[in-house]
C-alpha cells in the first residue's frame, strides 16, 4: 500500500472554522467494526421506531425478531428453508460485483432458472432418477444464457448494465406471466401457476423438516470460496478488480474473466430460482422471485463480496424475512416493511464508511 501525505486541509473548515475534515489513512479493524456496529444499531433503532409507528407493540419487537425466530423450532426450520435461496442470490451478487458488474438482473435470472427447471418437468425429459440434476443443470443454463446479453452488451458496446439487467427483469417477469396465465397454467384449477411437480422432482428433506437445499447452499458457498480465493481464476479476478488495464497488460484474459464470472453469477441466481421452485413452491408461480434481487445485492454489499460473510448475512436476512412474514400474519404489517428495513440498514452501513475514512479534527491555533 502506498502512503501519500494525509490531505489536511485548512480550506474546508466546518463549524465556524474551528474544525476540519481530513482523510484517514487507516483505521484499526476493531474500530472499523465498532463504527459499523454503531451504524447498524442506529439503523435498527430507526426500524424499531417505524415498526412501533406501524402498530407493533414496542414490548413485542424483541420477542418477534429474536426469541420467536431463534428459539421456536418451526421458525428455525423456516429460517433455514428461506436461507438456502438467499445464500445463493447473495453469492450471485458477490460474484458479479467482484467482476465490477452491477448485476441487478438477479430476479430475471431466477425466473429463467425456474422456467428451465419447470420445462424439464412439464415435458417429462430424462429418466426419473436423473430428473433433479437435469432440472438444476437446465436452470443454470437458461439463467446463464439470459445473463449473456447484458454482459456482452457491456463489454462490446459499453451499454450500462444497471439499466439493461433491470429491463431484462421486467421482460422475464412478463414472460413468466405469459406462461403461468397461458400455456403452462395448471388446467385443474383457476390459479396462475403451473401443474405441481411430481414427488421425485422435489428436493427431499435430509432430516425431518430440514430441506436438503440448505446443504446445497453450503456446498455452493465452499465452491464459490474456492473459485474466488484459491483458484487461478480468483487471482485473475482480483487483478481485474484492482486495475483492469494493468491486468490486461500483464496477460490476464480480462474479458473472458469478466464474462465467466458474470455468467457464474447468473447461474447461481438460476440455481436460486430452481431451489425456490423445486424446494419451496413445488410448481412455477407468478411472484416467487420478488424481493430476492434486492436482497442479493444487499447481502453482497454488506458482506463486502466475501462468500463466507455473505452466507452469514444471508442467514440474518432470511431471519428478517421469516420475522416479516410473522408480522404480516399477526399485525397486518405489509411485507414492504422488510424491504424498508433492508434499505435503511444499507444506507446506515454505507454511511458508516464515511466515518471510517474521515475524521473531524479540531484546528489548533497556528495550524493554518
Amino acid at each position, binding site marked *: 500500500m502506498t502512503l501519500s501525505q494525509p*490531505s489536511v*486541509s485548512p*480550506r*474546508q473548515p466546518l463549524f465556524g472554522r474551528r474544525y476540519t*475534515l*481530513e*482523510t484517514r489513512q487507516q483505521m484499526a479493524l476493531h474500530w472499523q467494526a465498532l463504527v459499523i456496529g454503531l451504524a447498524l444499531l442506529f439503523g435498527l433503532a430507526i426500524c424499531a421506531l*417505524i415498526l412501533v409507528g*406501524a*402498530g407493533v407493540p414496542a414490548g413485542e419487537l424483541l420477542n418477534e425478531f429474536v426469541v420467536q425466530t431463534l428459539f421456536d423450532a418451526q421458525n428455525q426450520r423456516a429460517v433455514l428453508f428461506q436461507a438456502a435461496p438467499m445464500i445463493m442470490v447473495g453469492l450471485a451478487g458477490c460474484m458479479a460485483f467482484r467482476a465490477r458488474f*452491477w448485476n*441487478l438482473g438477479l430476479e430475471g435470472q431466477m425466473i429463467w432458472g425456474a422456467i428451465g427447471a419447470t420445462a424439464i418437468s412439464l415435458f417429462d425429459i430424462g429418466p426419473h432418477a436423473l430428473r433433479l440434476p437435469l432440472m438444476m443443470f437446465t436452470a443454470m443454463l437458461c439463467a446463464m444464457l439470459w445473463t449473456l446479453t447484458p454482459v456482452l*452488451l457491456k463489454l462490446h*458496446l*459499453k*451499454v*450500462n448494465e*444497471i*439499466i*439493461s439487467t*433491470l*429491463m*431484462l427483469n*421486467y*421482460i422475464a417477469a*412478463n*414472460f413468466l*406471466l*405469459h406462461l403461468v*396465465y*397461458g400455456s403452462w397454467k395448471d388446467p385443474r384449477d383457476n390459479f396462475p401457476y403451473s401443474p405441481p411437480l411430481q414427488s421425485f422432482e422435489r428436493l427431499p428433506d435430509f432430516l425431518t423438516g430440514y430441506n436438503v437445499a440448505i446443504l446445497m447452499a453450503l456446498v455452493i458457498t465452499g465452491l464459490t470460496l474456492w473459485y474466488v480465493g484459491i483458484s487461478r481464476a480468483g487471482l485473475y479476478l482480483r487483478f481485474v478488480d484492482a486495475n483492469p488495464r494493468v491486468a490486461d497488460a500483464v496477460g490476464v484474459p480480462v474479458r473472458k474473466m469478466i464474462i465467466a464470472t458474470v455468467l457464474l453469477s447468473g447461474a447461481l441466481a438460476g440455481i436460486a430460482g430452481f431451489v425456490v421452485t423445486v424446494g419451496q413452491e413445488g410448481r412455477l408461480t407468478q411472484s416467487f422471485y420478488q424481493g430476492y434481487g*434486492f436482497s442479493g*445485492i*444487499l447481502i453482497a*454489499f454488506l458482506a463486502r463480496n466475501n462468500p463466507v460473510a455473505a452466507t452469514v448475512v444471508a442467514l440474518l436476512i432470511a431471519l428478517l424475512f421469516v420475522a416479516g412474514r410473522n408480522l404480516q400474519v399477526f399485525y397486518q*404489517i*405489509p*411485507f*414492504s*416493511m*422488510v*424491504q*424498508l*428495513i*433492508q*434499505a*435503511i440498514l*444499507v*444506507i446506515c452501513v*454505507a*454511511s458508516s*464508511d*464515511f466515518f471510517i475514512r474521515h475524521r473531524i479534527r479540531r484546528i489548533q491555533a497556528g495550524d493554518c
Partner: protein
Amino acid sequence: MDLLTHWLGNAPDFAVPFALAALGLILTERAGVLALGAEGLMLVGALAGIGTQLGVGLAGLSLLAAMIAASTVSLLFALMVLVLRINQVIAGLALVFFCQGLTGLAGTVFGWTNRPVSGLHSVELWPLSELPLVGKVFVQNPLVYLTVLIFIAVVWFLQRTQTGLHLRAVGENPQAADAAGIPVLTYRLAAIVAGAALIGLAGAYIAVLSTKMWIADMTGGRGWIAVSLVIFARWSPWRALAGALLFGAIEALIPQLAAAGVRLPQYFVLMTPYAVTLLVMIWVALSSRESASQPGALGEPFIREQRR
C-alpha cells in the same frame, strides 16, 4: 382512422410522466450528480399525490404535495452523496429500494391502496381541438400544457441564465467552478432537490391524473426508462421530450390495439416498453456520440481536498 385519432390523443397523456422525470434527471445530472433514484422518487410523488387527493381533493394541491414530498426524500440522497460521499450508484439504488419499501408500507398502513380518486378535467385548446385527425391531441388535462411551459422554463434557465451556466459548470468541471467561486455543493443540493420535485410531479401525474389510484410499485420501471431516456437524449431537454413522446406513443398504442380487437399475446405487448428501452440503449451505443455530451463530472463526488 378512429384508432389513429385516439392513439394520437392519448399519447401525450402517457408521454408526460417520462418527459417530466427525464427533465428532472437532466437538471440533476447537469450538475454532475448521477441520479438513479428516479424510480423511487416517482413512487414517493405518486403516493403523496394520492394521499393529498384522498384527504383534500384539490388536484393542484396534490401535485404540489407530491413535489414537496419527493424533494424532502431527495434530501436523504443529497445527504448520502454530498455530505457522506457515498458512491452515487450505491446511493441511488439504496434510494430506490428505500422508497419502494416506504411507499409500499405507507400505502397499506394509511389504507390508500386501490382507492379511486377524481383527476382533472380536460381542457380543449380551441380552435386546435377542432382539427381533423390530430384534434384530440389538444384535448388534455392542464398539466400536459404546463409540462410544455416547464420545459421551456428549464431550457431557458439552463441555457440563458447565469445560474444555469454555473450549474452546468459545476457538472462539467467542479474544480474549475470552485476556483471561480461557485459554491459547488450548494448548486448540487439545489439541483437534486429541484430535479426531485419534477420527478415527484411525474409520479403524481401517473397516480393522480392517469391511473387515478395508488397501487404498490405502480410506476413499473418508468423511472428507469426515464434514466435511459436521458442517455438517449444526450442530456438535452428537447431530445428527451422527443424520446418521451416516442415512449408515450408506444404505451398509448397498447390499450388502443386491445380496444381495436387486435389479438396479440398480452404479456408480450406489455414487454415492449422495456424491450424498446434496451434497443434504444444499444442504438445509442452503436451511434456512440453520447460520451461527448455527457456532463464531464457525472457521478464524481466533489471533494475539495482531493484535487485532480
